[in-house]
């Protein structure tokens, strides 16, 4: 580590600790102490959901992908993986929205769209795009593989 880096490191840690303290002061001034339990529960919940649910799930998928990796071409795996990831992230954002919509909103201009219907439409479009991308990839690679043999004719 260079001397300049060491200086930056010290400066950043000072700023960081200062901001953490400021956050603590704001919390102390603006939020009633009886609410701290709720905030701590949310922070702990985030760690539990990440380390305990999302991480093992991704670990499992990684293992499964290794198995598939022995048989299916890598770009095809990546395209499918990408579609699953995009679909899952969208679900993460939209499922709570659908749930809240079912509970009801304070007025009709809040959550006015057909989120469930739109999500289904999005998934259909995603599936079509994924299939087309895989198809294109397979056609292109087949042509590329075929080309040397035709040039030999």
């Amino acid at each position, binding site marked *: 580590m260079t001397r300049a880096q060491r200086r930056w490191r010290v400066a950043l840690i000072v*700023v960081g600790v200062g901001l953490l303290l400021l956050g603590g002061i704001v919390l102390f001034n603006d939020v009633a102490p009886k609410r701290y339990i709720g905030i701590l529960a949310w922070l702990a919940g*985030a760690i539990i959901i990440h380390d305990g649910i999302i991480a093992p799930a991704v*670990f499992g998928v990684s293992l499964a992908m290794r198995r598939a990796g022995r048989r299916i071409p890598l770009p095809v795996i990546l395209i499918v993986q990408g579609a699953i990831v995009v679909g899952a992230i969208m679900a993460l954002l939209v499922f709570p929205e659908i749930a809240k919509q079912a509970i009801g909103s304070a007025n009709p201009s809040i959550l006015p769209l057909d989120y469930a219907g739109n999500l289904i439409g999005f998934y259909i479009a995603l599936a079509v795009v994924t299939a087309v991308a895989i198809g294109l990839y397979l056609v292109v690679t087949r042509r590329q593989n075929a080309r040397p043999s035709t040039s030999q004719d």
Partner: protein
Amino acid sequence: MVLWNLQRLLNGMRRSLAAPSRNPRAAVVIGRLLGAAFILCFATGIYSHFIQDPLPWMHFPTRPIWIYQVSQGIHITAGIACFPLLLAKLYAVFPELFQTPVVRSVPHILERASIALFVASSIVQIVIGLINTYQWYQLFPFPFRQTHYALSFVVVGSLAIHIAIKLPVIAQYWSKRSAFEADGVTLAERPAEPVGAPLVPAPPHDEVPIGGVTGKVIAWIDSTPKPRPDEVRTSRRGFFAIAGVAVAAVVGLTAGQSFRLLDGVNLFAPRKQGVGPSGLPINRTAAAAKVLESARDADWVLTVVNGETSTTFTRAQLLALPQYDVDLPIACVEGWSQMASWRGPRLRDLADAVGARDGVAIRAVSLEKDSSYARTTVGPEWVRDELTLVALELNGDVLDIDHGYPARLIAPARPGVLQTKWLSSLEVIA
């Protein structure tokens, strides 16, 4: 013995998670974008916080008229972009979760604790931000605004500490070129390796095998052929492509609530342009504010007070004053916004009617009950602004009761929550 087995298990997990896209360069590239998104959210959030609760010396720009609207559109959109970016970042550094030994030294404990705080506060921050835009307040065992504000300092503070700790790695992998030079090999040639070298070297394959299911899984992992250089490159590009598509999807399909250009593909935002009374969304209804009777009262007057001087205006008298048409957005602190056409007398004409001096602020008092926004302060930068109206009409209609009938404030570059509805009095603050 148990520890040794745990260590081998963690090592095995790390090895099984080794993937070409999980490398320091990917962590740096995604980390830069995520860091930028956090800073954008922080800056726009602080702006919105202080425009609502200004310190005495603070003055805010009133032009361009869209500055508040765009800042909050960026706040919410960058916040939504953080979902795929944060997941990509966590994915890139995933094997770090299975470090062995779990803790090594006091600085190492502090480092891991700071990362735990950083990850937890970041996740909570973006999740409660999103849920707040759905107005699902029942999920919060804490007051949203204050908690979101306090956590913003925790997130940015932890970010600074995180950058400080990772500075050498960040410097090494900042540019593609330095990432090449760091290893003395091309990116494509570099073997797949998790972030940070394992402390305990992975046991060679001919070592005494671990028994049981764990041993079988690890043996199976180890028997996977190493990816070829072209596959390494493809994997890496694939990772960035997937992250890019995910960001584009979540941003593109929601940002229409704040940016008109994307309104046509607004499939998932909690607000839609053009939906609401007079084609404009609302937050608090007249019923929720308990003003259904008082706002429709035939005896309603707007009282304008300056010290001892006081005068009242009926709605007809307000309509008899010179009327002005202005196009100004309603821009919510929740990030959605929409342009609208307003008509009514200027606030400065009403201030003049009671002989208010230049440079004074005005307290706007609403008929609404049980709201911390029933009394708001209009800073001097807005009082004399020619675009600040006491609006009586919206988009060509008589102001809807849910938009603040009989009269409401509308001023440029201010949050919607301060554009006081159901006005009852305007008081000059000396």
